[in-house]
């Protein structure tokens, strides 16, 4: 299969198929992510957005096709091997550990590559986490848990982030904070795939949008979408 040769391509997904047990949820995804951009996967519930992130991370084990990251094939790699290539994942459910306090949650991921944020930088960026460092992880508010889930992967030095609906269920002011954070990360050269259903949030941060339906890519837009594009997106999202 011909691989796209955009000079800055970081991740190329080709003909990706994925299954949960016997049920197929990804039906031949094709898209690529450029170095340093924020790409959103848009689509309705059950379209296959989260599954795509889980397939890239290796958490969805049964998958075929090609996931090429910086010229390395990931399709047969295990989760921890993929993580060590510099990809980090923040799941929708945030997965804050109840048996660990906030500090333990934050410092659990080992530093894999240099250039990650230090604990001091993270506490500066997320002062709430420092204040509540010795609370159980799951005692935090939803917004704080989301901050913690993002903060802990910023320690590792991984610069390719998979973020699954970071805005979900949060107050508008916190969504705005997360948006600011993502823009800062982009300035620092991070590459981000963002799964979103919140179109306004997605539009405010992303460079490009990929629309997913029934486990396939059905459309792609750049950030400077025209008004006709917007109505198309809204039709896809059913809003």
């Amino acid at each position, binding site marked *: 299969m011909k691989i796209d040769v955009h000079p800055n391509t970081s991740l190329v997904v080709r003909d990706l198929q994925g299954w949960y047990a016997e049920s197929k949820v990804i039906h031949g995804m094709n898209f690529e992510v450029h170095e340093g951009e924020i790409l959103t996967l848009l689509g309705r519930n059950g379209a296959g957005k989260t599954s795509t992130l889980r397939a890239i*991370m290796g958490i969805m084990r049964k998958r075929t096709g090609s996931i090429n990251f910086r010229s390395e094939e990931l399709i047969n790699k295990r989760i*921890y091997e993929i*993580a060590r290539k510099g990809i980090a994942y923040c799941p929708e459910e945030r997965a804050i550990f*109840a*048996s*660990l306090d906030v500090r333990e949650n934050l410092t*659990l*991921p080992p530093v894999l590559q240099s250039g990650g944020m230090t604990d001091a930088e993270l506490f500066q960026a997320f002062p709430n986490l420092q204040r509540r460092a010795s609370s159980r992880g799951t005692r935090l508010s939803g917004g704080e848990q989301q901050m913690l889930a993002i903060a802990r992967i910023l320690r590792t030095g991984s610069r390719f982030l998979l973020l699954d609906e970071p805005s979900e269920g949060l107050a508008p002011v916190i969504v705005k904070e997360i948006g600011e954070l993502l823009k800062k990360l982009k300035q620092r050269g991070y590459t981000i795939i963002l799964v979103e259903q919140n179109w306004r949030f997605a539009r405010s941060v992303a460079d490009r949008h990929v629309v997913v339906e029934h486990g396939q890519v059905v459309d792609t837009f750049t950030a400077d979408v025209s008004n006709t594009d917007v109505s198309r997106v809204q039709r896809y999202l059913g809003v």
Partner: protein
Amino acid sequence: MFDMISPQLLFGQLLIGLINGSFYAMLSMGLAIIFGLMNVVNFAHGVQYMLGAFCAWLLLNYLGVPYWGALIIAPLAVGAFGMLMERLVLRPLQHLDHLYALLATYAIALIVEGLVRQEYGSTGLPYAAPISGGINLGFMFLPYYRLWVVVFSIVTCAGTWLLIEYSKLGAYLRAANENPNIVESFGINVPRMITLTYGLGVGLAALSGVLAAPIYQVSPSMGSGLMITVFAVVVIGGIGSISGAIVTGYILGLAEAITKVFYPEAATTVAFVVMIVVLLLKPNGIFSSEKA
């Protein structure tokens, strides 16, 4: 009836209870560690304990390695056997219902116990205590070796608990217990961690076996007899709760001893009576966490 009980009898039984409790605690702690990470009830635990004792006996009788050497070598050897078992048998079953892994450990237990019986017979083999003598406390005689067993098991249990509760390694274990995929997505080699943790649990069983060799006789069925009570300990303490397993282990050993003094007929039943009561009142066990 109470005035007939001499202090010698009472304290003698309490010492036996404390010794039994030490083994219950160490064995149920290993089971709890394994269950916590793998969700597998390790039915081979009793056999792995027996292998520890046999390993000590073989080392002494064939290679002349004394008890103190066996205390290190046997857990390593049996732990290595456990890791092999995890890689070859348990790992291929890990994506199936956990009942398959449970059955596999039970099958291995039956096979290994049968092989050992075939080779060495069912009668107990003697193993001399490495420390002789004891101290007369006035109300009872305390053999030094028994004191050593109690102290060693308390130190081992406390050390293991501290490791899991307060170290980085322990944090990985606790986190992987909740969500192994996310821990692995941080770049941690969770499959290897599972192998090593199973090896640790098995090694602890073998260590208990070496400790037990001079107290109980070394025999193929020494583990299966003990494990019935140990499973009761695990259920009472709360499946997967490490501190619960340790504390319940000692308490149950003492409860058996006290029952033996006041109503000997019920001594072997008391653990199960407690288990039934706990299951009725607090089905997840006394020390269960929110997860269980």
